[in-house]
Structures are given as C-alpha cells and as structure tokens.
C-alpha cells in the first residue's frame, strides 16, 4: 500500500485526513469547567485572604498564609486521589492556580516513592514543576533587570 519511503505529499495527505477525522475538543464544556473550577479555587483564596485581613494582616501580608493553605489543600487532595479527577475535567482551571503547581510537585513525589527517597522522590519531584521554576525565575530576573534600567 505504501512505498518504502512514504513521500512528503502522501504524508501530508494522510495528516490532512487525520485532522478531518480527529474528534473535536469539547471547547465550550471545557471552558465552562475551567471557569467554574478556576473561579471557585480563586474564591476560596479570596475567602482566606479576607479572613486574615479581618485578623489584622495587611492585604499584602495575607497573601503568604493564603498561599500556604491553598498549597496544603491541593497536596492533601492530590494525596487522596481527588485532584487528578478534578484536573481531568477542569483542565487549566485547576492547573493554572497555585494549587495546580502544588499538584504537579506532589503527584510525581507520590509516584516515584517506590524508587526511594533520593533517586525517587528527591530526583523526580520537580520533573513537571522544574521547568516552570527555571523559566519563571529566569523571566523574573529579566523583568527585574528591565525595571532596574528604567529607574
């Protein structure tokens, strides 16, 4: 049916056919899920922030303990095996908030425990979050430098 080396044209024709038959992503459904779940996570964060402000923290100071609580909850629900179920439906809604970042560290840590504490958890914990940190910190340095030049 196919020659030894499939020609570029034939490959492209096939890929086109594939694109036609590829099941459509349920974009609207995904967006609604992402909006609702992402919104609820942020609302929860706002609730904690307001609570800490009511205790006498400044809004800026309240950010610290709020993040800590959200990270804890995310790690806790990842451990219970709930967060991946949420992520399956909510997509970016549960990946983008800080809880998604916590999930991406706890999930590999749990998974690679069987390979030991050093080469398992230690080495693999940042397998997903690592790139985020590398490029996040690099971007922060560049932005900081630009900010410093403008002053």
């Amino acid at each position, binding site marked *: 049916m196919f020659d030894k080396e499939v020609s570029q044209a034939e490959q492209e024709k096939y890929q086109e056919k594939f694109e036609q038959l590829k*099941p459509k992503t349920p974009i609207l459904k995904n967006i609604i899920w992402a909006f609702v779940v992402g919104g609820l996570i942020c609302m929860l964060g706002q609730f904690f922030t307001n609570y800490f402000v009511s205790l006498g923290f400044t809004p800026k100071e309240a950010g610290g303990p709020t993040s800590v609580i959200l990270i804890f909850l995310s790690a806790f629900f990842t451990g219970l095996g709930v967060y991946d179920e949420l992520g399956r439906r909510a997509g970016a809604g549960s990946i983008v908030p800080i809880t998604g970042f916590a999930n991406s560290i706890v999930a590999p840590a749990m998974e690679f425990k069987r390979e030991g504490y050093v080469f398992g958890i230690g080495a693999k914990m940042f397998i997903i979050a690592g790139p985020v940190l590398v490029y996040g910190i690099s971007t922060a340095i560049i932005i900081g430098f630009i900010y410093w030049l403008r002053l």
Partner: protein
Amino acid sequence: MNKKRGQQSIIFSSPPVITSTANIVGPMEGEGHLTEFYDKILEDTLDGNPSWEKCESKMMEWAINTAVTKDNSILADIDYVLAGDLLNQLMSAHFALRGIGRPFLGLYGACSTMAESMLLGSTLIDGCFGNKVVAAVSSHHDAAERQYRFPTEQGVQRPMVAQWTVTGSGAAVISAIGNGPRITAATVGKIVDMGLKDPNAMGPAMAPAAADTLWHHFEDCGRQPNYYDMIYTGDLGSVGKALVIELFKAKGIDLSSNYEDCGCMIFKDDQDAHAGASGCASSAIVFTGYIYKLLMQQKLRRVLFVGTGSLHSTTSYQQKDSMPCIAHAVAIET
C-alpha cells in the same frame, strides 16, 4: 518447501493449533463490554503488590500458568515462551518469566507484540523446533502512564484522540497437535511512518501500518477481505479504525462490514477512555477471551488478527521525532 508467500507472508504447511488461552484484567476493563470473557478480574490495579510494575509481572505469570493448566499441560511441556510488554527493558516479561523456568525469548513490538509472538511461535512449531509454545503479553495503565506520560495523580486533561492503556495480560498456548483453531498464515509487517508526531494520537499513527500489512496479506495470500469472517486490528481506537477504512476506501475496497478494532471493544463510552483502548493487552485480552471463544464455538471460522504497534520511545518524541509504526497479521481458521 518454501513457506514464504509474496513479499511479506508465510503460509504454514502444518498449521499450529491454539490449544488454550487465558487472560486477566484490571478493574476498569472488568467493568467494560467484555466482562464475561475474562478469566480473572483484579479488584484494584495493585492487587496486593508493592508496585504497578510488579502487579503487571504477576498478571503475566498468572496468565501463562493458567493457559498452560487449561491446556492440561505442565510448564515442563512448554518448549519456548515468547513474551513482551511495554516497559523499558521488558521489565514485566522478564520478572514474570523468572518464576516460569522455561526457554524464553523476549519480544518488543510495542502493542503489536501479541500478534508478533503468535507469528513467531507458529513459525517455531511449523518448523518442527518444538511442540508447544506460549505467547504472552501484558500492559498496565498506571505503569505505562508514568513511563510514557505524566504521573497518574497529575491533574491533566487528556485530549479526545488519546486512548487508555489496558491493564491486563493474555497468554495463548500454541501446539503442534490438538483441538482448536489453527494459525494458517501470517504476514510480517514493515515499519510505516506517516510523520505523525503527537504521542497522544497513536491509533492514527498506526493505522497506515495496519492498512499496509492488511494490503500485503491480501496480495501475498491471494485473498480478498471477505475471505475472513472478521478482521481485527489491535488498538487503533475509533479514530485509527476510521482511518483504516478510509485508506482502503481510497483503494476501492470496502472493509466496513467485517472489520473491527479490539481497542473499540473493551471500554464503554461512559468510562471516559476517549478514543478507545491501547497497549499490548488490548489485542491480547480481546483475542484470548472474546475472539478465541467465538472461534471455539465456530461462530467465527476465519479471523485475521492484526497486532499494531507504535514504536516511538519517550526519548524520540522529546527529540521531536515522528512515530514509526508496525503491524503483524496472523490468520486463524477453524
């Protein structure tokens, strides 16, 4: 006498007999369409083992032992075991075979391994190199997921084209003499690469390899698709299956009436498997359960079983390479 036919096929002169089969699956597969065709359904994906990989090995060991017992044989009667799986260095097969103690050849054909092992097993038998061979494969969703994709607890959204790796193992005893359906012909596939790069879209990447092997099988053996009651591919899923039908339609051949994909037969729609099942065990559990039973009951008399494998690695797709794919076919007749 030369048993080779045409470019890629073999016609066996004394067709080997599939004298028994056995399979074991995980809980999700057990809740799918083919529940009654499984010998054992695990309650969870660890089954008391400390890791998923160990669970997969145990499943394969169980499948081999059960197939041999069902054959009224003992392990000492088995001349060769041909087995493989999806994990690096064939981890599951090697640890499973540790407890079997029979001559062993490890095979890697990704998800085509069941057909590959049956093909080579038949060749050993027909070539009079032995009387009994066991062909076995396994795959495990969680073990495969963490090797190929993300940690299982990671909250990721799977694309609709993605397939779900089957947790399970299947084994078949192929004998020189006995009762059961016979493997009459086989076609060795060649690697076909259509330049697809998305590792989520394995079915669509493998479909041209399946179509190519089918095409050569028909050509080499001088058979038409309607020679077979059913043609089964291993794990192309709904999208891959549609593509195979399209590829044949372009050549003026209608496959849609007697063609099905094992990957579309395992999970129910509400099980969220998206485009269907995949993995070595996808074709293996359907063949050793459903297809074998129908062959034994003579409800199917001529079956073409095509294992399909995507031969990419985790390194190759990170290096932005496309996915080379393969398919092997075995013709089974009662």
